[in-house]
C-alpha cells in the first residue's frame, strides 16, 4: 500500500522516529501506521483504498464526491441568498 504521508519526530537527544501515514478514502483523515495497535480500520472495495474505521466511513462516499457535495451546497446557498436579495 502506498503511504499518503510521512512524519518525523525528533527528540532532544537527536533520536529520530520516522513513519508513514495512510489516508482515509472517505473522510480525508490521516493516521500513523502502528501495526498491532488494535485499532480497527477498513478497506473500501469500491474506492480500492483504506478507510479510517470511523462509523461514517464504513459506507462508501468517496472524499472527492463529498467535497463536490459541500461545494454544491454552498453554491446553492449563495444563489438563494442572491435571489432573495439577502446579501447587501
Amino acid at each position: 500500500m502506498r503511504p499518503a504521508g510521512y512524519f518525523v519526530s525528533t527528540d532532544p537527544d537527536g533520536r529520530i522516529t520516522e513513519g508513514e501515514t495512510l489516508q482515509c478514502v472517505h473522510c480525508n483523515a490521516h493516521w500513523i501506521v502502528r501495526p498491532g495497535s488494535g485499532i480497527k480500520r477498513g478497506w473500501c472495495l469500491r474506492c480500492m483504498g483504506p478507510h479510517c474505521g470511523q462509523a461514517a466511513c464504513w459506507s462508501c462516499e468517496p472524499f472527492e464526491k463529498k467535497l463536490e457535495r459541500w461545494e454544491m451546497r454552498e453554491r446553492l446557498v449563495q444563489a438563494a441568498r442572491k435571489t432573495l436579495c439577502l446579501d447587501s
Partner: protein
Amino acid sequence: MADRYGTIGNMATVGTGYKTALAIQQAATARTRLKLYDFILSASAAPADNVLNWRIRRLTVAGTGTAINIEPVEGAASAASTAATANSKNMTAEPTYTANSELFQNSINQRATFRWVAAPGAELTVPATNSVGIGFEVKSPAYTGEAEVSAYWME
C-alpha cells in the same frame, strides 16, 4: 499552478481540555480548495517530560483569538485568499468544529518536535466553501506552557 502559503500559530497556555492553537479558514470569496501539506508541532517551555495531545479537525465557524500573518512561500505569489486571519491563533473562544471530523491525532512528548508532510495528492483538503477550515487543537494533562504549530498549504 497552486500557490503555497505558510503561517505559525500558538497556544500560550496549554490546558487539560483541547484549545485551538491555529485555525486556517476559507474566505467568503473562496474559489479554490485549500490543501494542507505540511505541519510542525512543538512546545517551547523549559524541557520536561510531559505529553501534548494534538488533533486536527474541520471547523465551520470562526472563534476568537489573535491575528496571524500568512506569508507566501514563494515571495512573488499573490496574497492568500484564506480568511479569518484576525482571529486565528491562541484562541480564547473556540471555533465551531464539525463532529467526528478528526483529520489527524497524535500525542507527542514535550521535548519532541513533530513534522508531517503529505504525499503529493494526499493533502488535507478544505472545500472552496465560505468560512470552513481546519483547526489545530492541543491539550495536556500536566503541561501548561506554550505549544506551537507551523502550517503550510496550497490554494
